[in-house]
């Protein structure tokens, strides 16, 4: 896999506070990489450093196997915290400036404005926009050059529920085109829904890194129980979708093979003459894992 970003022992100190402490990170092409952490854990500072607006106190980073950082940024669409545009200019005029800097031509301006639902307001001044519309404009600006890499810092900040759903779908859509996305968020639900990989920062230190799939790997588990537990356990031995089974208390926890769901178990048991009194699909949430990880490092 092509290396997109490689961070080596990157550090930043603000006065007494060590905002980022010897951070190592690697992002390869096609990953949707979530940077998680509580408020003040160094997420935005890290993104600021790799975008060269915050000067690191130590360490290095490399874009696209050593492309010059300023050139690399032209191929990265970024949202960093609050939307920053010229309030006295319209959406189109603001995007022209971004296009000029990115040297990408202005022909995609209308496309991206339509994509984020701002086309109707394209000739209104930025200062007349609501917070949600401003956030949408920064997403439009990030997508302007159709970049292979996106950096999104709290991309759904300030959006209404509909906007959040739209942006989430947009991100999934972009990710499905094979683009790389680096996303900082404290909304774990969001990360779980769109990310493939993630790391957890706490007080500037990386305390966990892995793929979302591995961390939430045992997601395909079903908890079952019936009146005759012995018969149930015996019968399940011949269930084709069985990966493993484990008895805990009055329930059996069944790990299923891919493509099997609670529906097949229910159907199978029914045919075996067993009536289930309990059938619960287990879901691991990233939130649970996240809190667990934070607790382990307390």
């Amino acid at each position, binding site marked *: 896999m092509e290396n997109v970003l490689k961070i080596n022992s990157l550090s930043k100190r603000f006065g007494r506070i060590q905002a980022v402490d010897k951070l190592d990170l690697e992002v390869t092409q096609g990953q949707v990489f979530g940077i998680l952490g509580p408020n003040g854990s160094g997420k935005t500072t890290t993104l600021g450093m790799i975008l*060269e607006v915050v000067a690191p106190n130590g360490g290095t980073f490399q874009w696209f196997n050593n492309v010059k950082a*300023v050139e690399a*940024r032209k191929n*990265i669409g970024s949202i960093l915290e609050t939307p920053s545009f*010229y309030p*006295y*200019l319209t959406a189109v005029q603001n995007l022209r400036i971004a296009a000029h*800097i*990115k040297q990408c031509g202005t022909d995609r301006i209308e496309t991206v404005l339509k994509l984020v639902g701002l086309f109707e307001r394209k000739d209104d001044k930025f200062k007349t926009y609501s917070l949600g519309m401003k956030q949408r404009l920064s997403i439009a600006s990030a997508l302007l050059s159709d970049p292979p890499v996106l950096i999104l810092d709290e991309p759904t900040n300030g959006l209404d529920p509909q906007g959040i759903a739209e942006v989430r779908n947009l991100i999934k859509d972009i990710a499905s085109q094979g683009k790389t996305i680096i996303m900082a968020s404290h909304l774990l639900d969001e990360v779980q829904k769109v990310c493939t990989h993630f790391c957890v920062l706490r007080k500037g230190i990386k305390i966990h890194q892995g793929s979302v799939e591995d961390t939430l790997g045992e997601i395909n588990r079903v908890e079952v129980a019936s009146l005759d537990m012995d018969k149930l356990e015996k019968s399940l031995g011949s269930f084709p979708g069985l990966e493993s089974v484990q008895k805990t208390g009055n329930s059996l926890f069944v790990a299923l093979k891919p493509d099997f769901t609670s529906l097949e178990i229910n159907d199978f048991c029914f045919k075996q003459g067993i009536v289930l009194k309990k059938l619960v699909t287990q879901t691991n949430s990233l939130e649970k894992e996240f809190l667990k990880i934070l607790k382990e490092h307390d």
Partner: protein
Amino acid sequence: MIRALKLEWLKIRNYRLFWILIGMYLIAILVIASGGGLFLEWLKREGVNFNGIDPTIVPIYDFPDIWQNIAYLGSFNKILLAFIVIISVNNDVVYNTMRQNVIDGISKTEFLLSKMSFIVAMAVISTLFLFVAGLVNGSVYSHVWGAEYIFDKTEFLAAYFYDILVYCTLAFLLSLIIKKAGFVIIALFLYTIMFEPIATAIFQNAPYFKDGIMPGIVQYLPIKSLNSLIPFPFSRYVFMEIDDFVPLKAMISSTVWFAIYLFSIVFILNKRDLK
């Protein structure tokens, strides 16, 4: 360079205040370049005469003296151009767009380059405007004509250009340091027309200071250095004193200040985190 200038142009061309200030500046230059004759008429009506000489025959529009005359008077308007620079830099600071520009893909050096090319462009345009205004007025009023007179002493136009360039770079630096545009404008205005001139006058004339080293030092202050580029021209009509050259000393001290401003800007841009 063109790319850097175009970036600034995209930012400023739809900004109304910019056009108002530029308009005021150009009108002020026109008034200064063309108003001298009216001013002398007024003096005559008021009954003023220079040792029995009718004021209206004072040859202020004669080539090549006209260049020094209008460059001297015009240079006071540079403060309007400095206001434009202050507002333009301040916008990028308070709207956080300097950071956004960097994130989108320019280096801080390119940011500096775009602001400096904008300053150079303004200085070039106002120098050209002054040149045309001088040419028009000279062709109407000058008693002499011919290329050897017209293009003589045009180094004052170059001094005018340099004056604007250095002064606007100072404005650039100040608006990076102080984030309140209004405050920078007032501070720069007062410093230019009051604080430094008054301090200079005190050190040069007050009994305690005037025999010390202070009078020597104050000539090298930022505004004094720039103002000395174009010496006061009108004494030649009254006292027959002639200071019709751009003093080398002023050139050197202005250039030293210019270098200090630029280095400070580079230092601040590289040092500061854009949060």
